[in-house]
């Protein structure tokens, strides 16, 4: 099972954090910090895997990928395959590359309750687009226009 997905920048600031087991806010911060502590100590040409049992308890592992200024981190237990997780990060990133919006929606399409749900970035995008289409359809009725300047300029 996947325990958590994190995206953080190279300064350790979280950009996205999702925990599939509930963690209180303080604990989340602590986990993010310790993950960052591990990651920033690693050289460039080493493996993408880290055993994380000191952070998340026995048997947990962490796979990360470093893109530009961002770390993408997946934390999971022994029932997943490291290389496959690495590719799941790839799927996630590829998807973001194609449509950078609704991060949570995208992630929800890929991982569901800690399990891998969809691994094709095309399918994910299809789903996300369908959602936004329907969303905007319902928006059109409820909210008229998106660019109402009245509240935007506050």
């Amino acid at each position, binding site marked *: 099972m996947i325990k958590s997905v994190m995206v953080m920048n190279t300064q350790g600031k979280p950009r996205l954090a999702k925990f599939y087991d509930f963690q209180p806010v303080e604990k989340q911060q602590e986990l993010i910090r310790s993950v960052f502590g591990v990651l920033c100590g690693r050289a460039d040409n080493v*493996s993408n895997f880290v055993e994380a049992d000191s952070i998340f308890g026995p048997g947990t592992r962490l796979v990360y990928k470093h893109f530009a200024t961002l770390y993408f981190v997946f934390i999971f237990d022994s029932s997943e395959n490291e*290389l496959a997780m690495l*590719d799941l990060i790839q799927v996630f990133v590829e998807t973001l590359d194609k449509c950078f919006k609704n991060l949570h929606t995208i992630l*929800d399409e890929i991982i569901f309750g800690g399990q891998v749900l969809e691994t094709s970035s095309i399918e994910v995008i299809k789903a996300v687009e369908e959602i936004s289409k329907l969303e905007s359809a319902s928006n059109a009725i409820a909210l008229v226009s998106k660019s109402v300047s009245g509240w935007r300029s506050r």
Partner: protein
Amino acid sequence: MGSQGGFGQSKEFLDLVKSIGEARSKAEEDRIVLNEIETLKRRISEPDIPKRKMKEYIIRLVYVEMLGHDASFGYIHAVKMTHDDNLVLKRTGYLAVTLFLNEDHDLIILIVNTIQKDLKSDNYLIVCAALNAVCKLINEETIPAVLPQVVELLGHSKEAVRRKAIMALHRFYQKSPSSVQHLVSNFRKRLCDNDPGVMGATLCPLFDLITVDVNSYKDLVISFVSILKQVAERRLPKSYDYHQMPAPFIQIRLLKILALLGSGDKQASENMYTVVGDIFRKCDSSSNIGNAVLYECICCVSSIYANPKLIESAADVIARFLKSDSHNLKYMGIDALGRLIKTSPEIAEQHQLAVIDCLEDPDDTLKRKTFELLYKMTKSSNVEVIVDRMIDYMISINDNHYKTEIASRCVELAEQFAPSNHWFIQTMNKVFEHAGDLVNIKVAHNLMRLIAEGFGEDDDNADSQLRSSAVESYLRIIGEPKLPSVFLQVICWVLGEYGTADGKVSASYITGKLCDVAEAYSNDETIKAYAITALMKIYAFEIAAGRKVDMLPECQSLIEELSASHSTDLQQRAYELEAVTGLDAYAVEIIMPADASCEDIEIDKNLSFLNGYVEQALEKGAQPYIPENERSGMLSVSNFRSQDQHEASIHGLRFEAYELPKPSVPSRPPVSLASATELAPVPEPSYPRVTQNVASVPSVSSADPSDLRLRLDGVQKKWGRPTYTPSETSTSTSTSEKTVNGVTKVDAARDTIYSKVRDTAYDSRKPDAEIPLEKQKLAASLFGGSSKTERRASTTSHRAGKASSHVIEKPQASKASDKTVAEKTIVQPPPDLLDLGEPAVLSRSPSIDPFKQLEGLLDSPQVPSNSNHGAAGANKDSDIMGLHAETAGSGPSSGIVNPVPTNKNDLDLLSGLSNSTTNNALGGTPTAHSTQVSKGPNTKDSLEKDSLVRQMGVTPTSPNPNLFKDLLG
């Protein structure tokens, strides 16, 4: 987070995100966020906020919480938003609550109703959003409220909904297996869903179910196999392909499931062989995901009932992983190797050098994985090398968590496989010295116990030898600064008990050291207590032996200091010491018999012998005894009291203390020590906590704790006399177990290297050659040993046909072949390097002699290692030579290490090689022929392999294949 595409957010929010991004320090960030929280708090409670603005506030709350600040004031608004009819708002609300709330939060009850309604919605997106929330927010109590709807959704027309419904059901199963037990059959049904995505989703819960109960799902083996077959044959729609692999994630899941189902089940496994073999063949090993599937295949192969062909394929893949440049693949290779050696231990041997490379890799993750592998393959023949390595690594790291783990592994391995007690003590010393505060206190107790009890056999000589070696090493170590407390406790105890036992060290020397310790660690009361007790023992033994005791001035002052200590325990010990030194030899002999820590002590729990005394006291008007459990603050203290201090403290009783164990003093009534100690606390009920710990240590060796004893029993069995050879201090003795011949050869070889190495200035190749030798030796000591035996059997039959013709020349031939091998590995200038070359044979030499002894069939030592797995043999050959190339490349982080000398080496090597072969051919010994014959195909093999690896863009660690052309031509 909502829509980040740029539209929909206010400038304010974008500014916030921007300023957070630009914040220079955590403090600045916090200030911005706190400010934001204030704003949100104010705004969010305003009446009549437009919904759209509310949505933004909620998203800002999510953002604030992600940055680690409390946003609980806004939770209720997020909950309210889920009630909205608008899809966007509803989804935002659900997103926020799934991020904010846990399943036991009070507000959940307000959402359950909405979820129920939404699960019935016509809009499938609303249903999906609700299912999303279900996964996160429904707990055991609320499952029944939504369960019927979720089950109904399993038959929904949209596959996305079916899929999510399965996942939700799976989640329920994880949270409370009993609540959905009756619905498990749904998963089986959904496995046959038309949509591959739904089928794939079903594999997740099925995997969990099968993990718990394999037997109920054996009937599905055929289905899983056929699904996997179809997937591998690309029968699924193209959209499931990922990097040209057909649905790799589904394949991985299926392989995991098959691994579970086939484990230990021959019949089930037989169904799987074909499909797994197919995947091995078809899998694209150039992509990451292809390797992921291959790795999963290896896991599956190592778990199901063994199949030699599949194991061979698995071994090939592992070889490819290990040779790869990618650390990820090396990591997977090491991990896979660790799995596969459980079924076929001989595989590790082929990869010894790769494993050693990984061990020396700067990547910590890889290193740890490799240690895990070594830990798995430890046996008595290589325990010394492995534990040494582990300890070295343990010393080098700072991560306490891992340090603890590796320390406990060292201890475990040492306890299980220790070749000798001496080695065990040395190892424990190292572990304690460097990770003393991290190891379990029980380990220290075990060590003391071992020293006290020795072999558990009646060999006093060996016991005392062990003790004096322990004492000796401790006296050496004790002067070092900053030793861990636990270790010092052991040291003090052993010095006190056995410091003067062999008479080599004077009492005043030891007491001096003990006083130093007590002084140096003056804020550690436990150590002081141990030290002063040890002092007391030493003085007591001196007095008992009739020697005159001159107390050192520092000891005198220590006693004075401790007599005035705040700790009553230390005070008491100090007074006891004073009292003991004032007694005559006879009395001291009785209270402090030498080496009595292991004597059994009989405990009269009823204290019946005191009845008379008690009655007398009661008659005189004393208070009756209050049972221990009615008092507080001193529970069980008495049980842990050590014998030594009590004897001194309770004057009326102490003389009887050692009576039982020493039947030679028959005049006194048999009164047990422990019963005497029971009384100790009565007059002084406020014993400090510390004493428990302090005193418990001596009691380990003298009295009860049964769990400790249990553990040590196993240990002692392993330490049976036969394995103990006092000379076994060197590290590479592992090979020596095999045969006597092997040993002498190895030793001789080793001697020559060392002498040669010290000879210094030779040509430039020499430093190059040294490292590989070390590595080679390490490899030999790690991997040499028992695994060879299995290998032998299979190779004989293979080679027997060819070999049989040479049977007659056996004695000479095998000797000659020894030489051939030696010569073959020689690098050019023969006189010096002949010696250098020989150790390279180390790993092989053990395999020579068993042959001679057992079969007498084979003419050449090359044969066993070369035949059988063609690749394996070739690896061995090339590895020896590859060493040069390897070490040149493996210099830490220096990518380019002058390639010219390396090549030259290889050339030299090869010319030497061809020389030797031609020589042999001329000489006409049959050996030479056979070696050549066996060499041909293997080199070809390795050539092919190399070129394959090269095609994949990986630099092989073995030497340039072109060079082999000389040989082949």
